[in-house]
Every structure is written in C-alpha cells, then in structure tokens.
C-alpha cells in the first residue's frame, strides 16, 4: 500500500513538472488570476491531481497500521524514481555523483524498510 502510494506520488511530480513547464512556455501575460486559470486548465496538472488523490488515499490506509517514523522515510524512494524519470522524460542531466547519491538514499530506504 505504502509502496504504491510512493510510486504514484513520484509519477504525480513528473506530471506536475510537465504541466508547469508547458505553462511556462505558453505564457504571454502576467496576472495571478490568469496564472491560476492556466494551471487549472493544464491536462497534466489534472493528472497530477488524480495521482495525488489516489496516493493520499492509499497513504492514509497504510499509515493507519504503520509507525509514522517507519512509513514516512519510505517516501524517500520517490527520489530514486523521480531522478530516473527526470532523466528519462525531461532529459535533465543527472551526473554520476547524483546517481551515487540516489544509490545511498536507496540503501537508506532499504534499511528503514527492514527495520
């Protein structure tokens, strides 16, 4: 339950970034009203919302049975997923050092999962 929630959250972040990046490219005028409207009209932002709601629902169910200090750090697995997906989909350059850091975080998550 917690793992599905974490994966959905990471996917949600990718959708959000995609949506906001598209928005940034298309923007022509200022105004907070038009910005909010623009955000609300972005399909990717909607996808983010759906993933976010599902992830939150699963999170609540999972958290009911687990320690917060156990479940919450497992979300760090999202770093691993987001780095992989950012590199794949946005072609953000992820260098070797960052991959090493991702590996360290992954190790930490595994330790917590086994605690």
């Amino acid at each position, binding site marked *: 339950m917690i793992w599905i929630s974490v994966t959905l959250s990471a996917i949600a*972040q*990718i959708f*959000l*970034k995609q949506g*906001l990046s598209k928005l*940034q490219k298309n*923007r*022509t005028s*200022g*105004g*907070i009203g*038009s*910005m909010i409207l623009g*955000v609300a009209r972005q399909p990717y932002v909607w996808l983010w919302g759906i993933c*976010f709601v599902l992830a*939150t*629902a699963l999170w*609540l*169910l999972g*958290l*009911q*049975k687990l*320690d*917060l*200090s*156990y479940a*919450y*750090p497992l*979300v*760090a697995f*999202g*770093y691993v997923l*987001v*780095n992989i997906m*950012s*590199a794949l989909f*946005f072609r*953000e*350059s*992820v*260098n070797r*050092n*960052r991959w*090493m*850091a*991702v*590996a*360290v*975080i*992954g*190790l*930490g*998550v*595994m*330790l*917590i*999962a*086994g*605690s």
Partner: protein
Amino acid sequence: MNSNIANTEAVSSPLLIEEAAKWEPRSLRGLLSQWWVPFSASSIFVVFGHLLIKSGLGAAAFTATSGSIWMRVLHCALQPEVAAGLLVYMLGSLCWMIAVAQQEISFLYPLSSMNYVLVVFASSAFFHESLSAKRLSGVGLIVLGMILMNRKGRVSEQ
C-alpha cells in the same frame, strides 16, 4: 513594469539566471519568487500536516476495521485531525508547486528530505515510536544522499 519584475528576479536568484531568462514576466513576486521561501513553507506545512494526520488516524483505527476500501479512506479523511492535517498538507503542496515552477525537480526533491528527519524525530517525541538503530541509520543515509546530491550536480553548475 514588466521589465522591473524580470530584473528583480535575476537579482534575487542568481543561481537561476538561465531559468529566469526563460521565464516570462509573471505576477508572483516578492517572497514567493524566491524558490526557497515557498519551499521552506512547504516543508513546515508538510511535517506539521503529517503529525496531525497520524494523530487523527490513531483515533480512526478503532472504529474503521471493516467496510469497502473507499469507505475506510473516507472514514479516515473525515476524522477532524486528519482533515485538518490534510488541509495543512495541501497548503504545503501549494507552496511546493510554487517552488517547483522555479527549480528543477531533481534539485528540489532531494532538499525536501529534511522533512523525513523532522518527521522521524517528531514521531518519536509525540507518538513515542521507538527509533531502532536500523531506522535511524536509514534516515542518516537518506540525509547523506541528500548532501551528496546537493554538493554535486546542481542545476546551476552544469
């Protein structure tokens, strides 16, 4: 007027000159245009929100053991503390959205791991959860990973 906004941004976030140049003149100014302000606010809201949620779920656990999965979710979400926690958490997400619009995800996301340290120690303090050496070293590794990630491979240094 528009050029004024663009100038302020370039000065207030020198690490993001490239981003700022790409970013059209926009309406979110002042504090919110400096990514670390919405980011820090998001951190505080997210941690506090989760403490509220967990606290409320403890009460819900006694009454919601059966029923369909969505009814259980609804039951949980309607606990006053859970609802308040979710609201605070949403506020944190809003701040996160504002920060994410200004910085790359693979840069901001690792920084938010500070939330995990805060949550773990707060869980121990408020809910008396026992922190095993394994769990603490796991969190330590996450923080180490965060530091590694932010020392090298910053967006602005590439």
